[in-house]
């Protein structure tokens, strides 16, 4: 009634009058409870005057019997939420509560009510409460003193934090307030199991930490407490103290810390030197870092001593001598402490490095063992990396600059050391030095380059040589001139030198040169030097007659590919690369193909499949990141080349005959192979680049893919067609093209000599359409499913399913801008697997294997989580697949079952009998991979419930004795693992 406004609260009070004044406290309690409930529901409707009366009434009730108090508090809570509460009332309510109620003797819920009253007042009547002065703080301290419930503590901590953050007067009660909160530190609370409130230990820790670290006023009490807890035995207490200390340092200044620095440092040092726990060590270092940062922050007054300085001095004093003993175990803790302190500020860094660096350099020369040198150099490296953090080296005060010469000589000596480990650290240090702008002089840089070249080319250990190349790559953008001026010519020279030493050596040297050239091309200006060198080398190899030509060309292409990947992000470099490399490769290929068609000459190696395949990624990588305008410019050259034989844009474009890859004629076989290069280019273009004469091109590709006898050419043409179809905008044109393709495929699929080619085309087109969810794809997939029953094409079709599901290397992936929808695999799975299963049951026995193979391909490429949820339905089919004689089917089925055994043992244990029999049979398969997989599955069987397995134990152990004597080591290894695990099944001590 009150809610609708029909009754006023006053009327209610009058109506309840009897109850409210009853002498029996229980009846009184019920009356007040009713009133409070009403108020809680409609506190927003109350008038100012009504509130006044109610407040007075409730205040007087606070002195009442203890049974009544809970309801009274509820009522006050309702009133505390009123907006019309007149000034002064809040204060009087709180005073009354502080005076009359002994909060800690109440129940948890009622204590919570008190806290909410306080919170409500604090959020709405801040000014009034501040008028209370320190009395309010004192009152609150009394209220929360002795609180035990975590739910209430969270609220109480929040109140304390607000008290401090909103600047309430704490007066003389700072210590009391600290005491009343810090007694909970460190928090030791384990939430009861199935706790509905969901308060975690972590919540309490964090909120308490926020309180403790909220004001510098607590410092004098908190720091001794932290030190005491740090010295305790408890891991969690240590961790908590360290984290709190770190938090405190964010707001403390010199003044607060001064007194406690020595004991803090000694505790931290002890922890780092002695602890076995990595976590504590990390936290200690973080705390030290924070301390040092805090000290560096405070402004120096001229008369006081520099605390940072004295603090760091004590650290140095304690750690320095440990650095001189690289074999002892305190070396690293000391170095880490110093680095943590030095990392806090530039000032701290200077203070520490000017003492430590000369020491380290001196120690390096003193110790001669490479393992000791390595430790010292690693520490040095740590300090150098810190320098990197400050970026620039300041001219006047840097200690590092004054030590430039010795540092360089130390690093160089490390590079020349025979120990690979030391070399690696040296290379790392060199990289860091290189990134310090202005540290290395130009003569040093030349030395650096010499060292890197030597390491990259002549070091026997491949690890160092690779690291040297990486280092060169990462330093090159900083000093492009030095690298292009010194390193590239040297490498070029090496590459072209015809040495007389053994062929093997020479070959590996050339390989290294090629790799190094690619690695160093991380800057546009360097790339402009290296790319011509690489291309020149490619041409030279092509003209040569040596037997390993093809391989050499492949490695040049790999280097070019690496360069292309490195310059992809840089638009200018990418365009340069594209402009130089693509025409050159095309020209070489075209020329080779022409010669081929007239008479046989060297250069033929260029047209071999592996070389062309290696060129594809180069062209593709050079194309994918082109901007649309530039790509359009380029496409207007390349496409006419293939369609019209328009060779004018190629360098050295005087060819004996015309280039017509799509023309008819027996002698054009070689030219047709170059479709691979066309594919690499066209299929990598961004989707919004229009391809001139696309319809014509598509028709030619379609014709080629269906008519060509050479499988390589036909497949590439099909891939190219598919790549274009995938990006073709939807619409009538696309439908026409697809219709044309289907018309072309149907007859050749049905019969004739070119069924295989037609199948390849069908597979690729299906993939292209499936990726973009084109409606026609389901019709094409059905056709493929039908072909599985074909005796001739069935196996090839089944293998084709892996092509559909797998990520393709050169076309139709995200990298070359193909239209790939997410989850296409899952979609394909749900659409087609039922059909596969159905087809399997209806098929002739001799083609059943095809269905199983297709199914296992689909399953193999499915993400594991999906697999595990879907598989149980297919289990019986998979078990049948195990007895299929095709080894691909066996292998992929086993690999499907393996995760399932581990993750869904309940389902699998229903079939344990079949599984055991099948696995054991397969362990004697003639194919090693199958034996291994079967043994792994047998091993995984042990994760099923033991009771299910025990009946088979004897049998399995006897059967597994045979593969123990297998002639392959890997099989024996698996057998031992599996058999050992089976022995342990059900026996004691597991």
């Amino acid at each position, binding site marked *: 009634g009150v809610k609708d406004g029909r009754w006023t609260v006053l009327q209610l009070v009058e109506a309840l009058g009897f109850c409210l004044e009853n002498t029996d406290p229980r009846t009184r309690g019920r009356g007040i409870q009713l009133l409070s409930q009403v108020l809680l529901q409609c506190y927003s409707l109350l008038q100012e005057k009504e509130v006044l009366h109610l407040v007075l009434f409730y205040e007087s009730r606070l002195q009442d019997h203890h049974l009544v108090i809970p309801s009274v508090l509820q009522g006050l809570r309702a009133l505390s939420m009123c907006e019309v509460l007149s000034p002064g009332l809040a204060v009087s309510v709180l005073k009354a509560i502080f005076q009359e109620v002994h909060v800690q003797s109440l129940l948890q819920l009622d204590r919570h009510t008190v806290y909410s009253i306080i919170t409500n007042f604090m959020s709405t009547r801040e000014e009034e409460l501040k008028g209370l002065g320190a009395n309010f703080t004192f009152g609150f301290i009394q209220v929360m003193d002795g609180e035990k419930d975590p739910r209430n503590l969270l609220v109480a901590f929040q109140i304390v934090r607000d008290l401090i953050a909103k600047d309430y007067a704490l007066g003389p009660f700072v210590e009391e307030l600290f005491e009343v909160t810090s007694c909970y530190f460190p928090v030791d609370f384990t939430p009861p199991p199935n706790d509905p409130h969901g308060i975690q230990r972590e919540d309490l820790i964090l909120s308490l930490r926020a309180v403790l670290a909220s004001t510098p006023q607590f410092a004098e009490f908190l720091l001794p407490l932290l030190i005491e807890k740090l010295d305790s035995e408890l891991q969690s207490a240590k961790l908590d103290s360290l984290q709190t200390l770190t938090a405190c340092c964010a707001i403390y200044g010199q003044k607060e810390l001064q007194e406690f620095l020595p004991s803090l440092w000694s505790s931290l040092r002890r922890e780092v030197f002695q602890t076995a726990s990595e976590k504590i060590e990390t936290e200690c270092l973080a705390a030290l870092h924070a301390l040092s940062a805090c000290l560096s922050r405070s402004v120096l007054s001229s008369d006081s001593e520099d605390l940072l300085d004295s603090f760091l001095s004590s650290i140095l004093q304690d750690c320095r001598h440990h650095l001189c003993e690289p074999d002892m175990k305190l070396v690293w803790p000391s170095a880490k402490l110093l680095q943590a302190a030095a990392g806090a500020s530039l000032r701290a860094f200077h203070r520490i490095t000017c003492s430590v660096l000369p020491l380290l350099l001196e120690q390096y020369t003193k110790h001669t063992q490479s393992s000791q040198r390595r430790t010292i150099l690693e520490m040095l490296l740590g300090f150098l990396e810190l320098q990197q953090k400050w970026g620039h080296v300041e001219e006047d005060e840097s200690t590092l600059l004054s030590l430039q010469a010795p540092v360089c000589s130390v690093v160089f000596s490390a590079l020349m050391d025979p120990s690979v480990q030391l070399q690696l650290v040296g290379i790392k240090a060199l990289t860091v030095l290189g990134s310090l702008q202005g540290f290395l002089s130009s003569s040093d840089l030349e030395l650096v380059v010499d060292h890197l070249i030597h390491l990259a080319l002549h070091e026997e250990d491949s690890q160092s040589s690779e690291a040297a190349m990486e280092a060169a790559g990462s330093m090159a953008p900083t000093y492009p001139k030095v690298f292009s001026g010194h390193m590239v010519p040297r490498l070029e020279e090496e590459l072209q030198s015809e040495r007389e030493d053994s062929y093997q050596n020479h070959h590996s040297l050339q390989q290294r040169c090629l790799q190094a050239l690619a690695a160093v091309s991380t800057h546009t200006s360097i790339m402009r030097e290296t790319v011509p060198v690489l291309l020149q080398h490619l041409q030279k190899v092509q003209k040569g007659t040596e037997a390993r030509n093809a391989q050499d060309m492949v490695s040049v292409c790999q280097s070019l590919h690496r360069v292309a990947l490195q310059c992809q992000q840089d638009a200018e470099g990418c365009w340069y690369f594209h402009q130089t490399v693509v025409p050159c490769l095309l020209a070489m290929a075209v020329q080779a193909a022409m010669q081929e068609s007239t008479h046989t000459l060297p250069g033929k190696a260029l047209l071999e499949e592996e070389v062309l395949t290696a060129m594809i990624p180069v062209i593709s990588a050079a194309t994918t990141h082109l901007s649309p305008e530039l790509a359009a410019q380029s496409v207007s050259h390349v496409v006419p080349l293939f369609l019209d034989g328009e060779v004018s844009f190629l360098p050295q474009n005087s060819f004996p005959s015309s280039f017509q890859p799509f023309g008819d004629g027996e002698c054009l076989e070689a030219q047709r192979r170059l479709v691979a290069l066309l594919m690499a280019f066209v299929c990598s273009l961004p989707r919004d680049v229009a391809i001139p004469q696309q319809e014509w091109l598509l028709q030619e590709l379609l014709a080629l893919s269906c008519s060509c006898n050479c499988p390589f050419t036909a497949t590439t043409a099909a891939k190219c067609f598919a790549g274009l179809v995938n990006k073709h905008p939807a619409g009538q044109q696309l439908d026409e093209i697809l219709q044309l393709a289907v018309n072309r495929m149907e007859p050749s699929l049905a019969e004739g000599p070119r069924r295989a080619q037609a199948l390849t085309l069908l597979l690729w087109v299906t993939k292209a359409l499936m990726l973009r969810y084109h409606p026609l794809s389901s019709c094409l997939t059905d056709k493929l499913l039908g072909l599985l029953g074909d005796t001739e094409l069935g196996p090839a079709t089944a293998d084709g399913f892996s092509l559909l599901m797998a990520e393709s290397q050169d076309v139709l992936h995200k990298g070359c801008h193909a239209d790939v929808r997410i989850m296409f695999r899952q979609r394909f799975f749900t659409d087609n697997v039922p059909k596969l299963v159905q087809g399997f049951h209806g098929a002739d026995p001799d083609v059943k294997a095809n269905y199983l193979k297709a199914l296992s391909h689909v399953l193999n490429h499915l993400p594991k989580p999906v697999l595990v949820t879907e598989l149980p339905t297919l289990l019986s089919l998979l078990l049948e697949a195990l007895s299929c004689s095709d080894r691909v089917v066996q292998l992929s089925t086993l690999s499907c079952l393996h995760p399932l055994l581990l993750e869904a043992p309940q389902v699998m244990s229903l079939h344990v009998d079949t599984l055991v029999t099948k696995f054991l049979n397969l362990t004697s398969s003639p194919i090693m991979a199958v034996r291994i997989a079967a043994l792994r599955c047998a091993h995984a069987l042990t994760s099923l419930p033991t009771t299910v397995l025990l009946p088979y134990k004897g049998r399995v152990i006897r059967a597994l*004795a*045979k593969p*123990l*004597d297998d002639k392959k080591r890997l099989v024996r290894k698996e057998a*031992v*693992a599996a*058999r*050992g695990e089976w*022995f*342990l099944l059900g*026996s*004691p*001590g*597991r």
Partner: protein
Amino acid sequence: LIRSINDPEHPLTLEELNVVEQVRVKVNDAESTVSVEFTPTIPHCSMATLIGLSIKVKLLRSLPERFKLDVHITPGTHASEHAVNKQLADKERVAAALENTHLLEVVNQCLSARS
């Protein structure tokens, strides 16, 4: 194979404790014999028999049946060398030991744990 067996008293493996070393293992595939010498950590190591038993069981389980096993203590490294060697060489006693549930439990603990 035996390098990863756990020591009954330490949390380390036999290899880490240098109880078994590669030079002290001789395998003759043609004659199907395997001979392992192991070195107890101290001359009075009370666990020597147990370690030997663990090695023997592990090999029994992991090698094809055709192999004849010989596990014994490296000469001169244990106080009661002969007694232990005799125990390990005696097939009946090894079999009997494995009937003992408690012993089997300890052996299995040595063999499982890590892996």
